[in-house]
Each structure stands twice: as structure tokens, then as C-alpha cells.
């Protein structure tokens, strides 16, 4: 029986712990400095907005860990001594391990802006960040958010929910257009503005200005404008949290370097989740994947390997989802922000400007490559199957009804989408197949 220690109780570490327990009798210890129990980081915003309390974000009740013999330690790991397989904890002394899993997550990027460490400046990643934001946004008039990714828009929504004015500085010419194609970036940008967020595109942070008490009083932008504010949120991406690991001599790049089995340069030490960097990325994917799903999958894989069934981290077809204020977003397959070689696109947008679908397919073979969907829920299973079977774009459009995952009675757009496709593509017409919904039947 081995003692497996996991540093970090986020989705990666906890998934690893749960799967190790399912498959083995090893001693399992999970250490976290952030929180006593596993909670869902994706729900951080909802606590601030009053949709949930902290306990609601904990996917397992507190008795779960003891019952499943997963030891939880609420402490900070100061250093790893991999020669002696020993961890030094801040309060609870030394801990000996046989196998170590590093799941230390990520930290907000700070690019050396003047004033970035002032009082009233915060990232939005951890529970401590949440407490800090809570404290520094009480009764304030305006907050400025620097960076326009998913966390940025979440923070904007949070502040807006408390009737705080929000200015959002986005370096690019469109919101999140390093990920979203122009059409969608535009659509989301408009929706953000609809929520009265002062979205400033092509705008960079130059300096954060302090008042006499060392608290934020304004930001200066690259184009010389001053925005008075009492809070600044830094959401210009995150980077792997690896300082301690780096000092211990485990090989790191931007993240902790791992091979396809998630093994680090040191035997019996693994790294998973936001902190890990693949030496050779999975084809078509980036070396550091910092989303919930990939963290979870790495946890599943590492557990298998440690339990004796050496398993490669081989994620299937890409998928992701998000919500921008009221607009839900799902993606299956790959939709890059700019078309790649031999890629064609078909974009459909509803007149409301809030519902859209963007299909990417191979120009020569017409093989379906990916879809972005806004305001329409799509069935993961169906799209995963189409991607695996290498279905063509016609098959996808003709069978789109089967892939709809919207609630009953929702208006369906498959016919409208197909009509739009047909009007743009005279070479081959598609007609929508499958069972009509009840409402479609009634309304004709």
C-alpha cells in the first residue's frame, strides 16, 4: 500500500483522489491551502452574486471524504524534497509520500503594471480572491476590469449584479477574439454593452493610481485616459502556479513539464490540471490546457496510471462551454478565431443578435470540423459521434434537429439555419430531417 499525496484540491486533484479510491486501497491525502473542502471554482461568481452560498458549491457533503478514506489536510506546502519523498508543510510539519500528484492550479497574470499590487486590486481565481473582492467592492461606484476573457466577463457580471458601474479594458479590437471568430466576438461584445458595461476595446492598462492611503483611485489607459474607480480586477489570463515546485528541482517550463502519461521529470511525481505543461502537446491542442474538463480528465488518467494501468492522456474531441451574461455558449470540435488552411465556414445569426451558430468544415472533403453555438443548446453525444465518424457538413445540417438540446417548447431554428446555408451554397442544398417538435408542428 502506497501513500499518495495530492497537492491541490481543485477538480484535477479531487478527481484523481476519487478515482484512486475507486481503484485502490492506497492511502490518499489531499492538501490544500485554499480551502478545507473541495468546491467548484466555476461557481465562484455565483457566491458573490448571491445565487449560491459557499456550501452549495461543494459537490460532495463533508462526510464524503472520511467515508471514502480520503484524508484532507488544510495547510500550505512550503517545499517538496523529492529525493527523500518528503513535503514540508507550513503548520503540520513533514509529510512522507510514495507518490506525489501536483495539482496546484493557476494564478492570475500580472504583467508588471505600475500599481498592480495596490489595495483594491485583485484577480478572480481563489476563495481568498473572492473574500478580497467582497471586501473591496462594498458600496463602490466603479470597478475596472483589465482583460476580456471568460473570467473578465464573469467579474463584470458580478459587479453589475451589485449595481456597480463596470469599465472593461480589452487589448484586442474585439472581445475575446483570440479565441472567438469575429462574428461571435462582436455578438458577445454587443451583449456585454447591453448590460451597461463600458467595454473599451483596443484599450490597455498603463497604470493603476493610488489615493493617499494606498488604495486604488483610478486607472490610466494606454491612450492617456483616466478612469476613476475604487476597484481593479486583473483578469488577463492565468499562468501555472509553480514557484514552489520549480524551487524543488522538478523540471518546469511555463508549467510543470509532463509527458503523455502526466509524469514529471522525477519518478513517482505527476502533474495534472492547470499547472501541467505537455512536452509534446496532443495534436491540435495547446500544451497548457486550463479548463475544467481537461483538469478532470487528467485526474481520471493519472489515477489509472498510478493504479498500475499505465494510461496516456488522450482527450477526445474538444468541447467547451461558457455563459456570457445571458448568452450560453457551447463548442464542439475546433473553431479557431481565424480560418485555417482548407477550412470553410458557415455562420448563421438570428435577427435578435443573441442566437448564432458557426460551422467549420474542410473545404475539400466537406468534413465537419467544429461548431460554435450561442443561445442554442447542443447535444454533446451527437456532435462527438459526428466528429468521430467524420460526418460531413451536410449530414450535420440535415440532422441538426437530433442534436438540439433546448428545453421543450423552445423555438427551433434548424430550418432557418438550413435555409441560410442553402442561400449561401448553391452547389448542394440541404433539407432538415427528423422529427419536428410539437411546437413546430402546431405553428407549421
Amino acid at each position: 500500500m502506497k501513500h499518495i499525496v495530492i497537492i491541490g484540491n481543485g477538480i484535477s486533484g479531487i478527481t484523481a483522489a476519487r478515482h484512486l479510491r475507486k481503484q485502490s486501497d492506497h492511502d490518499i491525502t489531499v492538501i490544500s491551502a485554499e480551502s478545507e473542502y473541495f468546491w467548484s471554482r466555476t461557481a465562484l461568481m455565483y457566491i458573490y452574486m448571491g445565487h449560491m452560498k459557499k456550501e452549495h458549491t461543494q459537490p460532495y457533503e463533508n462526510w464524503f471524504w472520511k467515508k471514502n478514506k480520503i484524508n484532507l489536510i488544510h495547510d500550505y506546502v512550503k517545499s517538496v524534497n523529492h529525493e527523500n519523498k518528503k513535503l514540508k508543510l507550513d503548520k503540520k510539519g513533514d509529510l512522507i509520500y510514495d507518490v506525489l500528484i501536483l495539482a496546484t492550479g493557476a494564478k492570475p497574470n500580472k504583467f508588471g503594471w505600475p500599481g498592480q499590487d495596490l489595495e483594491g486590486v485583485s484577480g478572480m481565481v481563489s476563495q481568498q480572491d473572492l473574500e478580497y473582492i467582497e471586501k473591496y467592492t462594498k458600496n463602490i461606484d466603479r470597478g475596472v476590469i483589465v482583460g476580456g476573457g471568460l473570467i473578465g466577463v464573469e467579474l463584470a457580471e458580478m459587479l453589475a449584479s451589485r449595481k456597480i458601474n463596470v469599465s472593461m479594458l480589452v487589448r484586442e479590437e474585439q472581445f475575446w477574439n483570440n479565441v472567438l471568430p469575429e462574428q461571435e466576438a462582436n455578438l458577445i461584445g454587443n451583449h456585454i454593452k447591453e448590460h451597461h458595461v463600458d467595454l473599451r476595446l483596443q484599450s490597455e492598462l498603463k497604470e493603476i493610481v493610488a489615493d493617499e492611503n494606498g488604495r486604488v483611485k483610478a486607472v490610466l489607459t494606454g491612450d492617456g485616459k483616466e478612469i476613476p474607480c475604487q476597484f481593479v480586477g486583473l483578469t488577463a489570463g492565468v499562468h501555472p502556479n509553480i514557484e514552489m515546485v520549480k524551487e524543488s528541482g522538478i523540471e518546469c517550463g511555463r508549467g510543470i513539464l509532463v509527458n503523455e502519461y502526466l509524469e514529471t521529470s522525477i519518478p513517482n511525481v505527476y502533474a495534472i490540471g492547470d499547472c501541467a505543461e505537455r512536452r509534446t502537446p496532443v495534436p491540435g491542442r495547446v500544451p497548457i490546457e486550463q479548463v475544467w474538463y481537461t483538469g478532470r480528465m487528467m485526474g481520471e488518467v493519472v489515477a489509472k496510471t498510478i493504479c498500475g494501468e499505465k494510461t496516456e492522456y488522450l482527450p477526445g474531441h474538444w468541447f467547451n462551454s461558457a455563459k456570457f451574461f445571458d448568452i450560453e455558449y457551447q463548442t464542439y470540435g475546433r473553431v479557431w478565431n481565424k480560418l485555417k488552411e482548407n477550412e470553410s465556414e458557415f455562420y448563421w445569426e438570428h435577427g435578435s443578435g443573441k442566437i448564432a451558430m458557426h460551422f467549420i468544415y474542410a473545404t475539400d472533403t466537406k468534413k465537419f470540423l467544429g461548431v460554435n453555438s450561442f443561445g442554442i443548446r447542443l447535444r454533446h453525444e451527437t456532435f462527438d459521434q459526428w466528429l468521430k465518424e467524420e460526418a460531413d457538413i451536410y449530414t450535420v445540417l440535415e440532422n441538426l434537429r437530433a442534436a438540439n438540446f433546448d428545453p421543450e417548447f423552445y423555438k427551433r431554428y434548424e430550418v432557418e439555419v438550413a435555409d441560410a446555408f442553402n442561400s449561401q451554397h448553391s452547389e448542394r442544398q440541404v433539407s432538415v430531417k427528423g422529427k419536428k417538435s410539437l411546437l413546430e408542428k402546431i405553428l407549421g
Partner: protein
Amino acid sequence: MKAVKLLGLVLFITGFTIFNATFFTADYRLNETILSNQFNDESKVDIFKKHTDLVDKSVGSNFDFVNGLGETFRKVNDEQLEKFGISKGEIDAIVNANNEIFSLSSLSVLGDDEIGQYKQKTFNDYGGWLDGRSFDSKEDMQAQISNVVENIKKYQIVNEKGFDQYQVKDLKYSLTKASSTGAVASNPSFFILLTYVLCILGAMLYILPKLQDGPPGIKNDGIFHSAMKNTGWLGILTGVFLIIFYIVLYFYPEYMTNWIIMVDPVSQFLKGSDAGRFFLYGFIYTLCILVMGVRMIIKYRHSKYQVIRTFSVMFFQTAFAFLIPEILLRLNQPYFDFKNIWPLDYDFFFDNELDTLLANGSLGIFMLGWGIALIIIGVPVFVYFFGKRWYCSWVCGCGGLAETLGDPYRQLSDKSLKAWKVERWMIHAVLAFAIVMTGGVLYTYWTGSSQIIGLSTYDVRSVYGAWIGAGFAGVVGTGFYPLMGNRVWCRFGCPLAAYLGIVQRFKSRFRITTNGGQCISCGNCSTYCEMGIDVRWYAQRGQNIVRSSCVGCGVCSSVCPRGVLNLENGDTEGRLNEPLLIGNDGVKMSS
């Protein structure tokens, strides 16, 4: 907009305050006409008058008046028991007139005057079976005779010469209502304007501006910061108010006569007779569903499912639960709610209900057949095709109130595993209780015998009525909205929900589908599940949600930020799927 909302709030609070004030502000003036109308027995009027100082006097408080009535009834009963009851001395005399063997002839010691004859007659009725019995000792005989004497007092004298507990209860209410004078009694319509209309107007001014609170979408901001929605002081106060309201309604209606008088004009308009307490209840209940239904529709205006569903509960409450039964009464037909189903409708098989239906020709027979068809055909067939939601969150009145008035409290349900265990025991125990109770009632109906294994079927049904029908469904079911969420009754108590749930769990096309591997474990679904289902537990392992308690309100699907959950009726194959998260092709494992 803020000003309009504020004005709405002020109007609502004003109307609500006036409504509560009317509870305390009637004058009560009892007179002889009222007494003879209510008693139908001049001798009782005389003796009542002898013991009361309430007649032709104005009393300013319902508490004093009702207390006064109660005291008078007690005094009347005391006098009549003293007068017509067999005294301790007389019992001794009877005992002494017998040897070891008791003989009815010994009753002659009670005298031969009118009262003496009454005493002899009642003893003959209640203790005739003692004739010829032999006793071991005088004490034994005395004990037995005392027993008979007590029964005569309890069951005969208070009933015939005085007022038994049921009469007292009814008379307290009807005398108080008939004696009420004052502003409300003399102008009930005006007070409808000052209370209900003002409250509705205020509520609408408060609710309608929500249309302007930004683009359609999930509106849960600040719920857990709210004193009302997170069991803060306002929520607790609201809960206490509701609990007191229900206790008064079910157990002490005599105190709320002013409220009932206020809706007399509405009752007159609908069914041509004065209101009773359950008319008042139905009236308020329907208004709550309609007003809060508008709120629900505005809140979830982005979701067609929620909008249509809310229209459905508003319609079924207004038409089926409120208007049609009252109109039936106006047409001299039996009161009948066509959408109420046994065992939620626990008195469906009570003798008086059956007699009423059977005495009302073909319509009555149709109603009986309809009710039975709903139980044995409607429930299983509809649940098979649509899940129990067809009833619980689309048709049912309890569900209708929970989904409208109760929507602000849905997040307060307990999601723990422990709560689920309690729930399963409790709700099925109530179902068993309802079945046993109804079985007993029908046994009595057919055989005429009111005893089964030493239990009186009447006692069983009155225990069910008080503890389950009134206490659980009413006081706890609604009173606990702001404390334990809006489905306490539906989740822990409703025997029909238990029945629907058994069908849903084992034989239905309904399930909540989990969308592949998209769940991020955020917890919105579980938090906003009014039935306390830990939806996330299933969603995060890629498993469909098939639970007997799910009422299919669809809110888990609405609040999910990633489009993971969908209510579907589909092929029963694969409904109870193995947990599987799509996306990790390197491993195939159940989660």
C-alpha cells in the same frame, strides 16, 4: 422604475396592514334572533341567555367574544349535567339498592318526576346491558355504574340538553360571524377594495417593472443576500405569519369571521350564498397563484417551458379548483374539483362524499367514475408518457402555489443525503396511512361496522384529517415555505406524489438528460431544486436523473449555465444509463 416599485410596495403593505387590522377591529353584538336562527331550539336559546351577558351588548374584541361564548357553553353544559346527570349520591343510592346482582328496577331510587324519568331512561339506554349482572363487590358495581353515568353525560346530555364539542365549534364560528358588526360587516365590498385590490395593485406595480430589469435571463442575483429568501428576519416573520394563518384557518376559524365576511359578496356573486372559511381560503389561494404567477412568468420570460407551465397552473387553479366547484354549487350540483386525485384528495371515498355523489344522478356518478379513472388510469398512463410533472408542476393546486408563491423559496430545500432518507420513509408512510385510512372508511361504508381490530375508523380518519390534511399539507406545507423551501408537503408528505413517484421511477419515459461531459459541478441545479434532489451528483458523472420525487419543474435546466440538463420523454431503454462522461477517449470508466 424604482419609484413605481416603491409605490407598489407601499400600497401592498398598506393593503396587507388593513387586512390584518380587520382581524382585530370588528364589534360583536349577539341578539335573540341570531340565537334562534343558529340554535333552532328555543329551550337552548333560553338556557344560553340565562348564562350569558353577551346578548344585546357590544363586544369590541373577537378574543373576548369567543371566550364569552365558550364560557357560556361551558356553564350551560355544567348546569344541564348537574340537572340531568346522575349524581354521586344517586350512584351510591343505586348501588345500595342492589345486592351482588344488579337490577334495573333499582333505578326507581332516581325518582319519578320528569328529571327522574329522564335519568332512568338514559341509564336504561346506556346501561341496560348491566341488568342481571353479578358483581364481586360494591366497589366494582359502583365503578361500572359510574362509567355508564359518565358516558351518558358525555354522549347524551351535552348533546341533547347542552352543546357537544362539535356543536360548540360550529356555533362559536357561526354565532361570531352572525354577530359581527362594524365597518367590514356593513361594507365588505369597500374593504375588498382596501385590502385585496390594494394588495394586488401594489404587487403588480412591484412586479411589472421587473420587465425592465435587463435582458431576459436567469434572475437570481442577491437571493442569498435577501432577508426574505435566505431565512432572514423577513422570511422567518413571513413563515410565522403563514403558520398562524393556517392554524387559525383550520382550527380556530371563529376568530377570522371578519375576513370571511369580507368575501361574502364574492361568494354571493359566484355561488349565490355566503362565504365559508374554505371559500376565503380558495379565494386567497387563487389570487396568490395568479399574482405570483405573473411574477414567475416575468422572471422566467426567456424560457417558454416555464411560461407555458406557469399559465397551466394558473388556469387549473382558477378554473378547476376555484370557479367550477363554486358554479356547480350554484347549479345545485355537488362541489367537485375535477383535477383533484385521491389520495391527495383524501376524503374522496368518505361516506358523506360518496353519498352526495351517488345522490346526484348521472353527473354524480360521472364524477365518481372520473375520480376513480384518474386514480387507476390517468396517473399511470400520463406518468408513463410525461412523468409526474404532468400533475405536480402543471395541474396540481399545491404544486401551483409552490411554483408561484413559493418560487422565491425554492433554494431553501435540504439537499443532504440524510434529508433524502427521511423523505423516502416519510412520504411512503403517509401513502400507507392514506391507504389504510381509506380502506377503513370504505369498510365502514360497506359493512356498517366502525371498528377494525379495536380501532374506530372514524378516529383514524379524523387523525388523518387533522395531522396530515390540515397539519402537514397546510400548516407545514405552506407555512414552512420561507423556512424549508416550497415543496415540503410535496416532498415529505403528499401521498399522491408518492404514488406518482413510484410510477415515475419504475415505468416512465421521463428523465432529465445529462449532456455528455459538459457539467462543471457549479451547483446551481441542486441549489434551485425545490425537491432537494442533488441534481449535480448525477450531472457531474454524466448520468441521467431518474428520481421518484422529481416534479419536472425544469428549473435545474433553466439555471444551468452550460446547457447540461434537459427534461425529456424518450425511449425507456437507456433511461437509467450508466454514468459516462464524454470527452476522455484515453480511458473508459464509469465516474
